[in-house]
């Protein structure tokens, strides 16, 4: 049984199939689902704010006392300023960028790791399946928030935004992996897989040729969920002060706003901005994933996050 596509051409073919399938799904969903379009627009706005707009910031928004403190929103400071003399708008754009980086890194690493592991376990079965699932289960049972706190404390000296994403990944792959495995197991029961086993495809071939197209929509939904999970995990860490407090992320913004009692002092713009942004990111990703899952009707979607 081969574990890899037999030739490079095969691999390219599989990749091509995957990409084509992906863009088909995308176009189809975009055409049929209004929720998807709305979500995509909001998300695009976030990306633009985070990636493009943030680079036009007239100054490093992380620096303190560059603008007058405690100003409410005004034409000069569209989202007001903080007690530390930071412009909330520019700070927010940077925060969006960093939070999205964390989210995307986690999504890329964790959900693909989970996907591949789950497919392998499901497709190979037997001993490999057992071992992989025991590994997965072990990670499921470890209490994640406390361990994340410990890791964040441990790696504080070397902590960077991408590293934060990687750390959060550690607890983001087991669930998807279990789900994927379950889906592969149920797909395995279907007849066409048997056909492809008899026609001589290896494990990887089966995975790409037969399972992936069915799992792909689910996987896209899981990607968006993982982004959310990562962003909110970082926020949870930040709220108790173990994120990268000198960087700008949505969680860190909330941390400083809470630290300066923005809620009780009427500096609502400081706290509300990152909170609304998180909500908007969530709503947009929710709509996107809803669009995709309405299209493909995967049953396991919401179980992706335990």
């Amino acid at each position, binding site marked *: 049984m081969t574990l890899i596509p037999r030739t490079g051409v095969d691999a390219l073919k599989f990749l091509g199939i995957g990409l084509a399938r992906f863009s088909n799904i995308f176009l189809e969903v975009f055409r049929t689902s209004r929720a998807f379009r709305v979500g995509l627009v909001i998300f695009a706005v976030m990306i633009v704010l985070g990636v493009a707009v943030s680079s036009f910031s007239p100054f490093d928004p992380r620096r303190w006392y560059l603008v007058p403190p405690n100003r409410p929103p005004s034409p000069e400071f569209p989202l007001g300023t903080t007690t530390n003399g930071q412009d909330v708008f520019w700070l927010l754009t940077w925060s969006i960028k960093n939070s999205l980086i964390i989210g995307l890194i986690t999504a890329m690493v964790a959900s693909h790791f989970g996907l591949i592991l789950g497919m392998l376990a499901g497709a190979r079965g037997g001993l490999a399946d057992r071992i992989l699932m025991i590994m997965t*289960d072990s990670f499921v049972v470890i209490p994640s928030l406390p361990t994340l*706190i410990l890791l964040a404390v441990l790696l504080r000296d070397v902590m960077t935004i991408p590293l934060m994403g990687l750390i959060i990944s550690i607890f983001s792959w087991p669930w998807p992996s279990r789900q994927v495995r379950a889906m592969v197991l149920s797909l395995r029961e279907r007849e066409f897989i048997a056909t492809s086993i008899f026609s001589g495809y290896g494990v990887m071939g089966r995975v790409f040729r037969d399972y992936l197209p069915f799992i792909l929509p689910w996987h896209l939904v899981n990607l968006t969920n993982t982004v959310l999970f990562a962003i909110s995990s970082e926020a949870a860490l930040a709220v108790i002060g173990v994120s990268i407090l000198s960087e700008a992320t949505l969680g860190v913004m909330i941390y400083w706003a*809470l630290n300066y009692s923005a*809620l009780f002092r009427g500096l609502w713009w400081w706290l509300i901005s990152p909170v609304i942004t998180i*909500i908007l990111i969530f709503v947009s990703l929710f709509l996107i994933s809803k669009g995709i899952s309405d299209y493909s009707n995967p049953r396991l979607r*919401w*179980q992706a996050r335990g």
Partner: protein
Amino acid sequence: MSKLLIFIASRIVAFVLTVVIGVTVVFIIPRLLPYNPVEAQIGFIYSIGQFYDPTAIESLRQTLYELYGLKGNPVEQYLGVWRRLLTLDLGPSIMSFPTPVATLIGIALPWTLGLLTFSVLISWTLGNVIGTISGFFNHKKFSKLLTGVAVVLYPVPYFILALVLMFTFAFLIPIFPLGGGITIVGVGFSLDLVLNLAKHAALPAISIIIPGALGWWFLSSFTLTSQKKTEDFVRYAELKGLPNGVVLRRYLIRNILMPQTTALGLALGGIFSGALLTEVVYAYPGLGRLLYQAIINNDYNMIMGISLLSILGVSLATLLLDLLYPLIDPTVRYR
């Protein structure tokens, strides 16, 4: 029958392996921390400016290393952990030396169990009922409104929701206390005691129930329902002209209950690591708070103890679910 036995045996083996790996990971991580509790304590003594004999400090340091069991090499320490676990002696707490970890967990556990069992069950039930009904009538107005609320509520950082609740219901409308577990003097079981406990648990519970019921459980059951609803057997039940009630009960709820029960089992198993943020915000004396204190004070023994409890809790829940699942879900067979 032997198939069943093999099934049970393999699950139990998996369970044991899971626990072993979990414990090992939890053992390794805090020990990688470049900090140690002895030096933390010495530093603490310096930093509060307590008067100490300068020569006494060094002897204090040496003694503490021995007492905290940090002298041996990692292998010895690791074996020590297993010896302790098997004898159920979790060692002394470092931050609350020399009280045994087991004692402290024993003090905190009932609070967490009480608060979380209650609120997890309530939010699960509530969320599933509302979510299923909304999912079933997902074209209705109330359903869209609820979904909107859930989508907005779910990502609100937990801490903020708790603070807003506290501000509103303990300050603006002071019907609940600001925090704590109990404010009644004297011991003995009475109605007052129960009411007092309930009053203190109310806000933390609400902070768990609202995002849980209206956020997470709602969204999951809503989504499951809307998906199941489009499946052939549900559509056909409607086409057969079965009343909505029958479709909802016999076709939808029954099919949704299974994945949701799995999730509930895991959520209940997870109770043993406590609700960290809730308990911190409301000064609620449960395991989550204890764990938080242990983490910021580098109390290895305590971290081990609580994590172990949590690992056991979740693994046991998984094991039980695995074993019981075929009984609940006719479509799953022992494999």
